[in-house]
């Protein structure tokens, strides 16, 4: 069953002014429960606007959005409940931190949900551990922490709401490669532990290729494709034409194919590349012998 579904979703900015612009154009989409989806697209392709529709922060100009089969803009739907079901971590989420202690800041979301104190406590400790925050940091002021740690606090704040769908908008922006890999693997761990649906917006094809089962590509406000990761990277040529950088390793394999070597092109991780090359060499060695 699909956890998020959109029907002809369209959003237009500043209607009736010279600045009118369609940010999301007629998107039809179904995201299955439990998927780990990477969302990619150029700056201004509409991906950020699209995800803000999923928890009702932005009201569509036309079209419908269903969360768990429920039309979120129907009269009887309470938007706040939808926001607890679909957790959204914004870009640079560390700038939304405001409480005196890390503990209290993570508690903000769960408290708004009206959970009992013991449950809140359990969730804070669990998510803090998951994102790699030390226990002694929980009672510090979040403003004493480093940038990377602040980001973890902010992500934990949304994770602690244990939403059915967790959406992260560029959670790795501005982090060094080590911090990037760490946060991504923690997100993946959360996905596996909670069996929840995770949507990850990213600029980096490499990151998405490594972590996502499925990829959603936005191009010029329209949905370009939504498919399993290997299927999407088979269309590497089209992606490059859009100005999206396909993973370097995929480019290498495409060039090999172009130069007449009969090799598969749906390669997007280094491990798989190694396997493919070895297989190819073995096959060729066999032919020669």
């Amino acid at each position, binding site marked *: 069953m699909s956890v998020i579904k959109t029907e002809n979703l369209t959003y237009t900015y500043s209607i009736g002014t010279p600045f009118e612009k369609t940010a999301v154009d007629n998107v039809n989409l179904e995201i299955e429960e439990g998927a780990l989806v990477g969302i990619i697209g150029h700056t201004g392709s509409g991906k950020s606007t699209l995800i803000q529709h999923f928890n009702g*922060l932005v009201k569509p100009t036309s079209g419908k959005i269903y969360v768990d089969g429920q039309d979120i803009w129907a009269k009887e739907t309470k938007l706040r409940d939808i*926001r607890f079901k679909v957790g959204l971590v914004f870009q640079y989420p560390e*700038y939304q*931190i*405001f409480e005196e202690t890390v503990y209290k800041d993570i508690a903000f979301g769960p408290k708004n949900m009206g959970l009992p104190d013991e449950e809140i406590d359990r969730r804070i400790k669990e998510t803090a551990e998951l994102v790699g925050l030390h226990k002694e940091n929980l009672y510090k002021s979040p403003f004493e922490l480093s940038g990377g740690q602040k980001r973890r606090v902010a992500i934990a704040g949304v994770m602690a*709401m244990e939403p059915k769908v967790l959406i992260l908008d560029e959670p790795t922006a501005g982090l060094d490669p080590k911090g990037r890999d760490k946060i991504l693997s923690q997100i993946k761990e959360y996905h596996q532990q909670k069996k929840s649906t995770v949507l990850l917006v990213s600029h980096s094809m490499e990151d998405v290729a490594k972590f996502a089962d499925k990829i959603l590509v936005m191009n010029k406000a329209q949905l370009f494709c939504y498919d399993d990761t290997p299927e999407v990277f088979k269309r590497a040529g089209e992606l490059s034409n859009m100005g999206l950088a396909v993973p370097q390793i995929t480019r290498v394999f495409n060039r090999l194919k172009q130069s007449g070597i009969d090799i598969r092109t749906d390669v997007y991780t280094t491990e798989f590349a190694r396997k493919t090359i070895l297989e190819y060499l073995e096959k060729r060695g066999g032919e020669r012998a």
Partner: protein
Amino acid sequence: MLKDITIGQYFPGNSVIHRLDPRFKIIITGVFIAMLFTADNFIGLGIGMVFLLVSFLLSQIPFKLMLKSLKPIIPIIIFTSILNLFFLDGVVLFKLGFIKVTYEGLRTSAFMIIRIVALIMGSSLLTYTTSPITLTDAIERLLSPLKKLKFPVHELAMMMTIALRFIPTLIEETDKIMSAQKARGADMESGSLLQRAKALTPILIPLFVSAFRRAEELALAMECRCYQGGDGRTRLRQLHSTGTDFFALGISIVFFDIIILMNCFLG
């Protein structure tokens, strides 16, 4: 909702009014305000309105935008006109219980409404046709004689420039923080007044933090480029006054004189 703020919003264009020297525009606006406050009869006020209308037509600013600038002061207009309408003594026109409307009250409140509307429209015309940066440039130049009195004119102008520059940035930031807290279930639309005031903490604290962070970054960036105040600093945009500027100032002074004459003859 935050995007509806228009005060100080520049509407780009290339009309005669846009091209006027900003220093002259400020002085002319001053003369116009003086016109409104010296006029003590409707004919004088009407002449002021003609002046406003002509400059408005010359500026090619859409009428809708002008009306939008009046929106925030509607409560003030209503409040002052009610005060004047009901609480002035004089010839009673009609009476309803303890409420009485006098001729003087009616006259004064009509007068006040026209005066306030013209005042706001006139000053909005200045900000609509002059970009904030040029405006502060002009203010700095106009105030420069005060430097002799050790008044920090340049610093003041720089502060204004920075403040104006950061208004849209901070509005955008507020929008973003509000969305982020709403996504965590913050409830800002319901509850008592106290609850709503409390609900602002998650927005104000991050906003302050980021404003200070930006200030620090900006200060550092300025120092890196050896900024050290106004002394010996040259400008990218030089202000030049032309014949048109003097002509426009002349016209507005003529209007001002006519209004003073009207006061003498009709007052």
